[in-house]
């Protein structure tokens, strides 16, 4: 039996799905309204899951105060109320689908020292969600 701890965060940001590898017509056909040149926004929910032994002295896998500070510094401060395509360097060349967002946020959080990062799950809207557990 494995124990994990999950914390949910949220941020609001805009993005545009557009790939330079495709023509305007192909982009329009593939991404539809998500290809709108002005972008559009979502309230994203990010679930961060940590795994590891529960410390008998604290009863915790990791101290949530530390996790909150880490996520605030490495994710929320950069992403909240931003245009992802223009303001997050990683997405200058990569399409900011929520799949790619999961990978980027996972990579930003995997250095958290308090416990092992198990997975990142992102809800782009209440009707779709994406999950990434690293490439190990």
């Amino acid at each position, binding site marked *: *039996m*494995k*124990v*994990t*701890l*999950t*914390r*949910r*965060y949220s941020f609001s940001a805009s993005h545009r799905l557009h790939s330079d590898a495709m023509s305007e017509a192909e982009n329009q056909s593939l991404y539809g309204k998500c290809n709108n040149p002005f972008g559009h926004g979502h309230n994203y929910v990010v679930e961060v*899951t940590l795994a590891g032994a*529960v410390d*008998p*002295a*604290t*009863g*915790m*896998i990791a*101290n*949530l*105060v530390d996790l909150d500070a880490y996520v605030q510094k490495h994710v929320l401060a950069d992403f909240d109320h931003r245009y992802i395509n223009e303001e997050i360097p990683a997405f200058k060349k990569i399409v900011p689908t929520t799949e790619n967002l999961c990978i980027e946020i996972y990579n930003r959080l995997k250095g958290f020292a308090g416990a092992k990062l198990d997975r990142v799950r992102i809800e782009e809207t209440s009707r779709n969600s994406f999950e990434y557990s690293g490439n190990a």
Partner: protein
Amino acid sequence: MSVEMSEGNIADREIGVPRDDMVTITRKIEFSASHLYHNPAFSAEENRRVFGKCNNPHGHGHNYTLEVTIAGTPDAKTGMVLDLVELKELMEREVMQRMDHRFLNYEVAELKGMIPTCENIATVIWKLLEPKVRQGKLQRVRLYEAPDLFADCVGDIPQRKN
């Protein structure tokens, strides 16, 4: 043409392609309880630093949401992995009666000597339920302390029969 059926083969003929697919069922309940975080081995200052406002000596409360998931193969006769009524009674007996409207530090024997964090409460619930699941296998215990915080205990995924 009449077909004779014994009780045993009704399920096989009418419901019953062999049921070797693994399915999970989940039941959710809510309970309310209070707790505090305090380790007597720590100094007062250390307790405050590590546990923050959760160290308030009077305790504080949450509305917990518990999701219990059982995995198994639907029974050929009943179509059920485990009768939900049985699961409901099990969760009522083992969790609700023990923890609902209780001060977890002082009133739940299984938590004595432990800090009643989400991780530890979920683990205690797993240990209470796991040996008592008669049909199927306990697959996951998910305990929400608040909508933005939960702990999971996850078991090995049962193997398909064939």
